[in-house]
């Protein structure tokens, strides 16, 4: 909200400077977002008198003026305004001045061969209004040479943010009250002489919707002239960022901006029959002032007459009964609307207006009669006419809240002790009533104050939050105890393990497109109001987001990407932590040592997957490699890792070429995903001591076996069989060769395994080694393997 210092001073007697006022506004909770000083904008513009005006020798529409600037010799200025003439006073912009409307810096120049030393300005050029017909004409008594800012009484303008709990400060008067309470001057509330009016109001006014519109006050004024509003009012409105429209509209806007009190003026000639606050009928329509037609429903309050709706109550007036230049007789409306219903209606219609903002947050229920008289007074003074008596239908809320307060609370809750007398002074200055035993009566306009904590806030903010001193929280003086949960520890560990493995952590959007979600089986949670179609579905997997990041990186010229993310998957029954990795493009770039670049393959993904699972404390040796990694993956080059057939904890594989195509990626991508919630956590407190271990004294023995096995046998099964053939002696088994083709029968493959035997107390005898070897061969035979000789 904007207001000028000049307007503020109308309600606040103060000697404070702009800086002091600004600092105090911030201190009491009215955040100053900007201060604009027009004196700066109007620098270099001054009151000047045209001494002579002669036609330009080379241009029909131009004149050559001599202008008295109040100092030195008169200046020669070329001017195109039709109203420029000898003897008039206007505003001269001298060389160096910057025209506010277009930012042009004035300088000495030649116009069609004639020297010109500045510019006589129009209203529009100085951003004082729309008029651009001619140059500004100042009264004859305007002092030549005075800076125009000074002559014009240009006032600094504050731009402040009013928090939603303070509709009473959505008018300059309310801000002045707060500032005065904070010691910045004396509050001068508007004083309204009650206006009795002549004769009964000729229009019947009533409220048939006491819930939505508890009070509807109004009166008729006959014989108004709706011209331009006076200069002082226009200037205050302009400073507040409100364009002057017509005297009648300006008067209602003025009331709203000055006192936070929206009102409405109807053209009486357009009304027929009683004017009533009622619920709209379902489907009823109104053409509003913004030239849009709104369809209403029975929960919305409207002001209507026999012919139809004239006002979406408290939000926007109707076009049909709005005032115009030739409006003669008017009906004023000052009503109290239910804040909640205004909010509901406004949201439903998607209509945000200054009036709605104020009504929704709550206008002053005690300012209806005064507001009506104030508006009447403004209109009578500006537009003339004769007012009728006022009609007051219904009654606004009038029962003030009374809060039992304890002055100790500023210390207990606010952390600052405030003298009781000062607390009483502050509350009184804010219009609160305080009894001897600290029953605090809340002014009706303060809808936000509900309890003692609110009173604390009032006292402390006016007293000054700078008085609050830091007080340490009580705590142990010893070493802080660990606070992280096992899941948090796991995530932190996995993150650094992945980064340590050469992967770059990305954070991608939680929402993806429907197509992307479909690629991973579809998402359960679809936004009603997404910001775009690309961000519509809560991701059921982290992979689509990472693949999109891969595409963006490839588009920027990257050739090798190792990305990971730790985040949530959003499923029907909840949110689950996951880690996903994508490896795209080149694993190793072409190089002097290795020649051609090498692309990532599925075993790169498997290696990282197992490394990370090991870091996570998963029993990696017990994992089963199974299928069903999902359609997202290459069907022959993907797998799931499970602890038991149903407990899937990870998947890895090459991304399916069709998926890559859908993501517009043209390099092979290996990927993996780990369900962090599925990794078994150690149960109970395990302590720190490891299980006992002493390295064996005797050297391990290695034996090689080559087996011919059926082509479809999983190598892992053979390996497992070998490893578990004699658990007492075999400590490790590795595959060191795999061969199919020449020399190996059709349908078979040759797998070579190195088995490590660990002797205990004594070295193996030949027959012992033979016995163990026989067990390995027998285990392989069970899987259809035969020892190659």
């Amino acid at each position: 909200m904007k207001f000028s210092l000049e307007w503020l001073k109308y309600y606040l007697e103060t000697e404070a400077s702009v800086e002091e006022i600004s600092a105090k506004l911030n201190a009491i909770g009215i955040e100053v977002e900007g201060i604009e000083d027009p004196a700066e904008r109007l620098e270099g513009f001054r009151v000047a008198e045209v001494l002579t005006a002669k036609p330009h020798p080379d241009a029909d529409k131009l004149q050559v003026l001599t202008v008295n600037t109040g100092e030195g010799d008169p200046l020669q200025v070329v001017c195109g305004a039709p109203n420029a003439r000898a003897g008039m006073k206007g505003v001269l912009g001298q060389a160096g001045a910057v025209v506010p409307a277009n930012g042009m810096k004035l300088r000495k120049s030649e116009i069609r061969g004639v020297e010109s030393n500045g510019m006589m300005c129009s209203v529009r050029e100085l951003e004082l209004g729309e008029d651009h017909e001619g140059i500004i004409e100042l009264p004859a008594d305007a002092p030549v040479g005075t800076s125009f800012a000074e002559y014009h009484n240009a006032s600094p303008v504050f731009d402040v943010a009013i928090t939603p709990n303070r509709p009473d400060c959505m008018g300059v008067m309310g801000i002045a009250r707060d500032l005065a309470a904070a010691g910045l001057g004396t509050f001068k509330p508007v004083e309204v002489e009650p206006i009795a009016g002549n004769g009964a109001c000729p229009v019947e006014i009533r409220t048939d919707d006491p819930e939505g519109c508890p009070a509807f006050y109004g009166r008729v004024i006959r014989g108004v002239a709706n011209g331009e509003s006076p200069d002082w009012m226009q200037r205050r409105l302009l400073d507040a960022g409100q364009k002057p429209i017509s005297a009648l509209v300006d008067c209602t806007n003025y009331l709203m901006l000055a006192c936070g009190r929206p009102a409405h003026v109807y053209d009486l000639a357009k009304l027929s029959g009683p004017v009533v606050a009622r619920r709209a009928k379902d489907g009823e329509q109104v053409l509003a002032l913004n030239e849009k037609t709104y369809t209403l429903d029975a929960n919305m309050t409207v002001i209507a007459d026999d012919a139809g709706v004239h006002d979406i109550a408290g939000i926007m007036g109707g076009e049909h009964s709005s005032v115009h230049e030739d409006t003669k007789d008017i009906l004023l409306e000052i009503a109290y609307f239910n804040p909640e219903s205004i909010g509901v209606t406004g949201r439903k219609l998607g209509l945000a207006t200054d009036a709605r903002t104020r009504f929704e947050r709550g206008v002053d229920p005690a300012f209806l009669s005064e507001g009506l008289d104030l508006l009447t007074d403004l209109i009578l003074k500006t537009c003339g006419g004769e007012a009728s008596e006022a009609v007051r239908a219904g009654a606004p809320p009038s029962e003030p809240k009374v809060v039992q307060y304890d002055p100790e609370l500023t210390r207990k809750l606010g952390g600052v002790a405030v003298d009781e007398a000062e607390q009483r002074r502050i509350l009184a200055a804010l219009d609160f009533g305080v009894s001897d035993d600290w029953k605090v009566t809340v002014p009706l306009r303060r809808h936000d104050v509900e309890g003692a904590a609110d009173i604390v806030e009032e006292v402390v903010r006016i007293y000054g939050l700078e008085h609050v001193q830091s007080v340490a929280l009580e705590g142990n003086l010893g070493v802080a105890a660990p606070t992280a949960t096992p899941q948090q520890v796991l995530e932190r560990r996995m993150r650094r393990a992945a980064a340590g493995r050469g992967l770059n952590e990305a954070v991608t959007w939680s929402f993806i497109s429907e197509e992307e979600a479909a690629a991973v089986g579809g998402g359960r949670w679809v936004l009603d109001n997404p910001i775009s179609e690309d961000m519509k579905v809560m991701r059921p997997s982290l992979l689509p987001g990472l693949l999109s990041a891969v595409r963006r990186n490839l588009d920027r010229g990257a050739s090798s990407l190792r990305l990971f993310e730790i985040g949530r998957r959003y499923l029907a029954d909840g949110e689950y932590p996951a880690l996903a990795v994508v490896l795209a493009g080149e694993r190793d770039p072409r190089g002097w040592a290795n020649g051609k670049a090498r692309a990532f393959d599925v075993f790169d993904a498997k290696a990282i997957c197992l490394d990370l699972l090991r870091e996570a404390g998963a029993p990696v040796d017990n994992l089963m490699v199974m299928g069903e990694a999902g359609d997202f993956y290459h069907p022959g080059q993907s797998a799931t890792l499970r602890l038991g057939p149903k407990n899937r904890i990870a998947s890895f594989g090459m991304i399916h070429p069709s998926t890559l195509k859908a993501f517009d990626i043209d390099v092979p991508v290996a990927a993996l995903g780990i369900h962090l919630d599925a990794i078994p956590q150690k149960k109970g407190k395990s302590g720190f001591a490891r299980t006992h271990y002493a390295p064996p004294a005797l050297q391990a023995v290695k034996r090689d076996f080559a087996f011919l096995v059926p082509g479809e046998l999983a190598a892992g099964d053979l390996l497992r069989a070998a490893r578990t053939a004699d658990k007492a002696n075999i400590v490790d088994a590795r595959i060191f060769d795999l061969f199919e083709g020449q020399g190996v029968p059709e349908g078979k493959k040759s797998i070579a395994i190195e088995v490590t035997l660990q002797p205990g107390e004594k070295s193996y005898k030949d027959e012992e080694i033979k016995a163990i070897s026989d067990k390995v061969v027998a285990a392989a035979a069970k899987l259809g393997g035969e020892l190659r000789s």
Partner: protein
Amino acid sequence: MSELETMKSDALSRIAAAADLDTLEGLRVEFLGKQGSISGLLKTLGKMSPEERQEKAPAIQGLRQAVADALADKKALLEAAELEARLATEKLDLTLPAPETPKGSVHPVSQVMDELAEIFADLGFAVATGPEIEDDWYNFTALNMPESHPARAMHDTFYFPDAAPKGGRMLLRTHTSPVQVRTMMADGAPVRIIAPGRVYRSDSDATHTPMFHQVEGLVIDKDIHLGHLKWTLETFLKAFFETDDIVLRLRPSYFPFTEPSVEVDVGFAIDDKGSRILGGSGDAPGHGWMELLGSGMVNRRVIEMSGLDPDEYQGFAFGVGVDRLAMLKYGMDDLRAFFDGDVRWLQHYGFSAFDQPTLSAGVGAGA
């Protein structure tokens, strides 16, 4: 000169002259091999009488030893020379690049969250989490924003079509504050938590993204007041930015879930490059105030709706943008880049896996 001495000097000079290991081996066979000349002399010892052997043996043995030593010495010399010659052919251009190990990185948001967890753990705060797809009740109603509350409109909420169990619709949490309510309901009082995480608002421009990160702090106990809030925030910011020169300005504000509500500004200076450097009073020359945190004393209605007795317990809550903290500390200037996954950005602004924040080393990772 005796015959033996002649043999010796002859053998030694031939050994010395041997040019390569093959020649040397030939000489060894010639002198010490089974049929070798010195071996032959040694064999004669067996046939001698003890007296004769005693007389001649030392000279013969001496000859054998001298030749054997000379062979060994020469062999070592030749081997060394040969190794040197071979190594000379094995010279590599060591300006050639070594195989590269890929450089991984931790995202700044994660790094800062780890830093926050570390600092607040020392103040006795645990880390709490809650759902992001949230019930209207937890996100708004329980935080004193009933259906018709005007402040709701300021939240630019993302909604789902699904009805929420406690009324209204399911939505994406607009702040981490619902975790306050959930924590109080689940754990009762006293409470000391921070709740970091993703939050969502339907807003997108240069400084806003529809998803961002917030951290919420909550302390509920008896006798907690604004002074404790101020101390906690000062202590946190001093530890986070690793400077004692942190000046806070509390400003009255409004949040439905706190009463009184305060906005917290931090003083900063503007350096030569026009960047803002936290520190000093914002009122000092060349300084300004930056709005950083929202906070206040938890509204008694929130405490009540969370199942605690507001006459017994009170406390404070605060919220701050994690991305914002990261930008202020580590100097990024574009929030949108946080979520783009550009690997160049990640490697530039990301952190080493070994930058695990610790209090003893300072939680921050130096540039």
